[in-house]
């Protein structure tokens, strides 16, 4: 089985402070990390490989800036068999439709895949569109927001979020599966593999011409129309009095917070 994992490098959110009152985003530390959703997708792929099909190959693909090389080497260190970076100046303005086109071209250059895994949504923009869009572009089946995954005789059982709960579906291959990050906590790479990832293995870079993409086909469909901020949080609102009444007020306030912030 050939498994392709789509990964993304994002700006480390721990280096970003948002000041709602100043309506500004401060980047204190410009460091890039492998997106948690991508890590979970790699973990899911490696578990599939380890649980049964040991002949499976896991290939990591990332479209991004040249520094996304680090993210791909981290994927190799975790256990992926090969990694390719899709990077080109023409990809810089990419929105999700352009990214889909690039990724689809790369998967075709790899002669297709049995299974494509990616995070349900990324930690920065979080649109959650790549998986289904790529499935459509390649004509694959799809299951999104998956919490458990097992493979058996060319079919795949996936437990996914459905309605208010979860449901299990069986899908034919080839398929695109998007992974819920909470369900697949990633492993730590082995020290020797981290060294090898930099010393021994290489990460080929494919540009637009390698993928047979013309620049004209890489114009985004969505346009950015501004940034705004949620209202600043108040400090020091006090509740007192009868516990039952207070509890009710607190839960109301909590529900509002949970829905608007989490």
């Amino acid at each position, binding site marked *: 089985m050939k498994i392709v994992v789509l990964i993304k490098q994002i700006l480390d959110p721990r280096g970003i402070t948002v000041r709602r009152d100043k309506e500004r985003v401060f980047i204190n530390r410009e460091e890039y990390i492998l997106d948690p959703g991508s890590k979970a997708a790699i973990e899911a792929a490696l578990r599939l490989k380890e649980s049964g099909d040991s002949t499976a190959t896991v290939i990591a693909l990332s479209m991004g800036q040249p520094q996304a090389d680090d993210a791909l080497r981290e994927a190799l260190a975790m256990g992926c068999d090969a990694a390719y970076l899709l990077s080109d100046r023409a990809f810089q303005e990419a929105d999700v439709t352009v990214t889909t086109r690039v990724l689809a071209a790369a998967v075709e250059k790899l002669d297709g895949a049995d299974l494509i895994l990616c995070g349900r949504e990324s930690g920065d923009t979080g649109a959650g569109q790549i998986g289904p869009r790529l499935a459509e572009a390649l004509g694959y089946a799809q299951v999104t927001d998956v919490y458990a995954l097992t493979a058996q005789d060319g079919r795949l059982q996936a437990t996914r979020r459905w*309605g208010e709960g979860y449901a299990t579906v069986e899908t034919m291959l080839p398929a695109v599966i998007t992974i819920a990050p909470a369900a697949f906590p990633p492993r730590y790479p082995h020290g020797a593999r981290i060294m090898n990832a930099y010393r021994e293995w290489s990460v080929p870079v494919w540009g637009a011409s390698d993928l047979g993409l013309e620049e004209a086909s890489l114009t985004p469909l969505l346009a950015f129309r501004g940034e705004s901020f949620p209202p600043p949080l108040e*400090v020091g609102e006090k509740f007192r009095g009868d516990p039952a009444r207070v509890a009710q007020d607190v839960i109301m306030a909590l529900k509002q917070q949970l829905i608007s912030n989490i």
Partner: protein
Amino acid sequence: MDFSYLDQWLEEEVGREEIEEVSTGYRNIWVVAETAAGSVLPAALAATGQARELADQIGVYVYAVLVGDGVEPLAEKLFACGADKVLVADEPALAEYQPEVYVKVLADLVNRYRPEILLLPATPLGNDLAPRLAQRLNTGLISHCIRLGVDMAERLLLGTFRVLGGEVYHTAACPEARPQMATLEPGYFRVPYEDPYRSGDLQRVEVDLADVTGRLTWTDLNARVELPPVPLSRARIVVSAGRGMGDAAGFALVEKLARALGGVVAGSRGAFDEGWIDEKQIVGVGGEFIAPDLYVACGLSGDIYHYFGLQNARFIVAINPDEKAPIMKVANLAVVGDAKQVISAMLDLLAQ
């Protein structure tokens, strides 16, 4: 009375509409009305209400699309919530969700009737279906919107969504491709008041499923999932106990509250000294430094050593009988009262 101005006005209106029709060819706002267990989902009703508001702004009709098996009677509800027309694709083959089949049905309808805007609720089904449909239609999709608006000058849908964990909002538009698509995050849009006297057009539509088959088999619709435990450093909701909880029974209340809120239990060094938590659960200097979205401090005074560990929390709730405790000054929401009583009352309410 002279009503000639009305004719003139109508003529102008009609004239303007014709120009619009020629220039884009796409009109009206559509909502994909998701159903479950024989009723329209509240999130889909809310999307219909939002579509009504947008339609009134730009002067077009609201269409709701029902896809499924035996869904035709649900049209009444959609009329009551603001739909002018309901398109019904009612087939036994559409009873269960298959991405390729639903995409085919909706793409055929869109290509035939050409809506200007297409909205879906951001439910598990909507999040699965909308991007695939957008890809098939070769158009842009603004997903997980928490607010929608219209740029009247360019007649564009503006969708606002959260980035960076909800601390920043971005707004996007789809200037060229049509239809303009968006998914609406449940809970952010009001379910409209129903007007039972409102009525509209119901139209059954033919679906052509000859050359499309679903590739999914739904084997269990009530699956259970055991999520792996979340380490304290990465928990989004943390409920924390201090010595003020009194005894083990008091601490048990804190544990119950954490479970009810879907969070993780932590505590101060005091709670560790009492033997309620282990070393890895201490928040503050010498323990964990955390940045959850919600931190609930129960019976905890919050001295400076503890506060260092939680100062990056986004929203702090403190329950403490002492109004002058340091934690009460930094809490977004400070409850003055006996922690045991307040937590018991909260648990009762959450259990309902």
